[in-house]
């Protein structure tokens, strides 16, 4: 093999773009398809095998392109865009490393049911399988982390495949779809190509409504129960069913707890809200699960972080499970009534039957638990900043329609606990995969979609460094995201597990200069520490606004200044170093066994 460039043909002369439906280049078909599908923004990064598509991209007047600094950033931006709008997120990348860098984002979107279409360039068809430059088996690599994927083998298939890809991504349980397009297909000409109106998918069926007998059966069970509980997940948000859920819960007088992905599906200011359940859920939400006699799961999937030890989960309850994905039903927990369909339709059908249930005693009992076991933390010192306090202040100072993103770890759980979510599509987090580095690009994607709204990424000092290069993307695209770093100098969630379950053996979790292991008394202090990088200076190096906050009295002015600023802002807040997230159900334990932590 010689090192010849893979493509020796001369760049094609710029084609005359016309409305005539013939003699269209493959690359142009891609752009036309994006426009037909209503794509307003695409995220990505160019390269040799996708250059033809990019050659057409900047001629489009409808598509705004956001050039990222790493393809993983593009993926999470598209996820943040999709989650905050309900539209399909679009990513364009090149072959080989461009495509493999999307894998984490694909897995993330697949776990959290986020609609994406990722278009990747591929080496020319005759080179496939030859270990060509920047070649990777992209359909092979991405098959387990996509809802579906395509390798386009003929330009004649291209329009239908793109139409199918968007349909699959946005319907049913949403998810990511990859379309891998070899370079020669992008350069090929299609005669009489017309973008199809309909997908062609004989084997793909989405059940939109549950059978009405099943809905009646579910309602009868609820009506006869004394202690019903709604457990709502991200499916309620994906289905835009928050209004229907509110109507159902308030009409029938049933308390609601939400999953991490479901935060915002029901207003946490409402008396019927029990906030989040599960490993770091509230004591009262978990007590309610363990006490309820009917559990109504809507758009949630009985994840192990929600159920704890499954054989002891909701021991007294009949289970009703509404989900659009039939394979979620009875996967982890045996279900008594299954409602397969779109959450919005199912809740609408339930609302036709619903009236007030006899739940006053139950709601009263839960109210007692709320008073008895509130979320709580202790202040210590005048100027020390507790991470929970920081989240409360962000919540207090941000407007109701602020969009909050998080990374993954302790700060994510504190945000889930202490930020009061009242609206759907205002919370962007990596729930299923737990991807550090998700939040900042997701916030950028949401800011692209909502230029007038405040978008805040609540980050950890570990996570933020996983996609911090996207500061350049935010600065050059005038996206005034606010990054609040909950900085404790640790990979805090791993440290918490080491603290509680590994005899404080803090192996490889301290992010500031490690102290001698023989002197454990020096752990947990900021004294003598100087965090590298200096995040505020780093922000300024990128042309953004940056500030370090180490004292409680400095916090509010800094947050106010950042929130009213019209540029990218980063606030590095040094918080109490050794704070743990409580309550906590140890992994694999029953929800009854909560560690409550400090009083």
């Amino acid at each position, binding site marked *: 093999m010689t090192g010849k460039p893979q493509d020796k043909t001369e760049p094609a002369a710029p084609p005359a773009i016309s409305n005539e439906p013939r003699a269209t280049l493959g690359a142009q078909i891609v752009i036309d398809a994006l426009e037909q599908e209503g794509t307003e923004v695409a995220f990505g990064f160019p390269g040799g095998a996708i250059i033809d598509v990019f050659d057409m991209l900047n001629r489009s007047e409808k598509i705004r392109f956001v050039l990222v600094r790493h393809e993983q950033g593009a993926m999470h931006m598209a996820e943040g865009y999709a989650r905050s709008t309900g539209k399909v997120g679009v990513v364009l990348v090149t072959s080989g490393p461009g495509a493999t860098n999307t894998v984490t984002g694909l897995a993330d979107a697949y776990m959290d049911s986020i609609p994406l279409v990722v278009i990747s360039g591929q080496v020319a068809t005759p080179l496939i399988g030859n270990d060509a430059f920047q070649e990777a088996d992209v359909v092979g690599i991405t098959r387990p982390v996509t809802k579906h994927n395509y390798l386009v083998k003929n330009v004649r298939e291209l329009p239908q495949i793109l139409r199918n890809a968007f349909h699959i991504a946005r319907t049913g349980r949403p998810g990511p779809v990859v379309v891998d397009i070899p370079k020669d297909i992008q350069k090929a000409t299609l005669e009489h190509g017309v973008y199809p109106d309909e997908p062609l*998918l004989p*084997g793909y069926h989405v059940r939109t409504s549950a059978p009405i007998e099943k809905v009646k059966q579910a309602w009868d069970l609820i009506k006869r129960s004394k202690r019903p509980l709604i457990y709502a997940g991200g499916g309620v948000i994906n289905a835009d069913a928050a209004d229907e859920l509110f109507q159902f819960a308030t009409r029938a007088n049933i308390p609601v707890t939400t999953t991490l992905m479901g935060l915002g599906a029901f207003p946490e200011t409402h008396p019927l809200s029990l906030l989040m359940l599960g490993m770091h859920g509230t004591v009262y939400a978990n007590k309610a699960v363990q006490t309820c006699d009917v559990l109504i799961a809507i758009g949630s999937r009985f994840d192990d972080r929600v159920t704890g030890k*499954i054989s002891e989960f909701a021991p*007294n309850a*009949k289970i009703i499970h509404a989900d659009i994905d039939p394979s979620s039903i*009875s*996967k982890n*927990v045996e279900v008594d009534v299954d409602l397969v369909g779109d959450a919005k339709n199912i809740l609408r059908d339930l609302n036709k039957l619903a009236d007030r249930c006899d739940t006053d005693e139950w709601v009263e009992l839960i109210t007692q638990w709320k008073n008895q076991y509130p979320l709580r933390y202790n202040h210590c010192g005048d100027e020390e900043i507790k991470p929970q306090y920081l989240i409360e202040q962000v919540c207090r100072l941000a407007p109701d329609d602020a969009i909050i993103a998080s990374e993954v770890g302790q700060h994510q759980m504190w945000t889930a606990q202490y930020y009061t979510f009242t609206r759907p599509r205002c919370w962007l987090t990596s729930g299923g995969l737990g991807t550090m580095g998700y939040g900042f690009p997701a916030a950028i994607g949401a800011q692209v979609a909502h230029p007038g709204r405040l978008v805040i990424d609540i980050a950890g000092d570990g996570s933020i460094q996983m996609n911090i290069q996207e500061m350049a993307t935010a600065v050059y695209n005038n996206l005034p995201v606010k990054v609040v770093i909950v900085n404790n100098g640790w990979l805090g969630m791993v440290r918490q597990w080491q603290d509680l379950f590994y005899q404080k053996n803090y192996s490889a979790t301290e992010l500031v200069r490690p102290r001698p292991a023989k002197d454990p008394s020096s752990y947990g202090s900021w004294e003598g520490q100087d965090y590298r990088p200096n995040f505020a200076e780093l922000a300024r190096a990128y042309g953004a606004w940056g500030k370090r906050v180490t004292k409680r009295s400095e916090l509010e002015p800094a947050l106010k200044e950042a929130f009213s600023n019209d540029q990218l802002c980063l606030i590095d807040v040094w918080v109490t170093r050794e704070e743990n997230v409580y309550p906590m159900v140890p992994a694999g334990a029953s929800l009854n066994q909560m560690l409550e932590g400090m009083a």
Partner: protein
Amino acid sequence: MATNANNGNQEFIRHIFFVLVENRSGVLARVAGLFSARGYNIESLSVAETENPQVSRMTIVVPGDRNIMSQVRKQLSKLVDTLEVHDFSVEDRDIVDREMILVKVSADDGTKRTQILQIANVYRAKIVNLSEQSMIVEATGNQGKIHALLQCLEPYGILEVARSGRVAMARGISEKT
């Protein structure tokens, strides 16, 4: 009462799945990936085009418990390329199932050859190749017959076995369940 879907019902069973899929590259990998990603086993798998060249038929024999069968059915149905999924217990009398087998048996003298030929006749098998040292027996049948034939041939020295994997079909007009 909430019960773990993965506990209980752990009785070992075996199902035959007939799956009609779009006849395009990558579909077999998707089906195989569905099993490997979940640690499920495939006992046998056969794939070929159907009467409609755009459709392939897969016959998959899966060992496991009831929950595995239920997940396999749901996950197969979930694949975008899947057109139909049907499954039956291997003991179900509503299906006909057959496997083809080629057995190379050691046969280096006339007596052995005569005996093997007699055995083949009993099982309605054919001798499809004869050499100085060995014979190849071709047989078709259900699992019981194939198993019995192999047992009969065992004493002569089985040199090689190639099996097609089971194919199956529901009796009657339609196999829709």
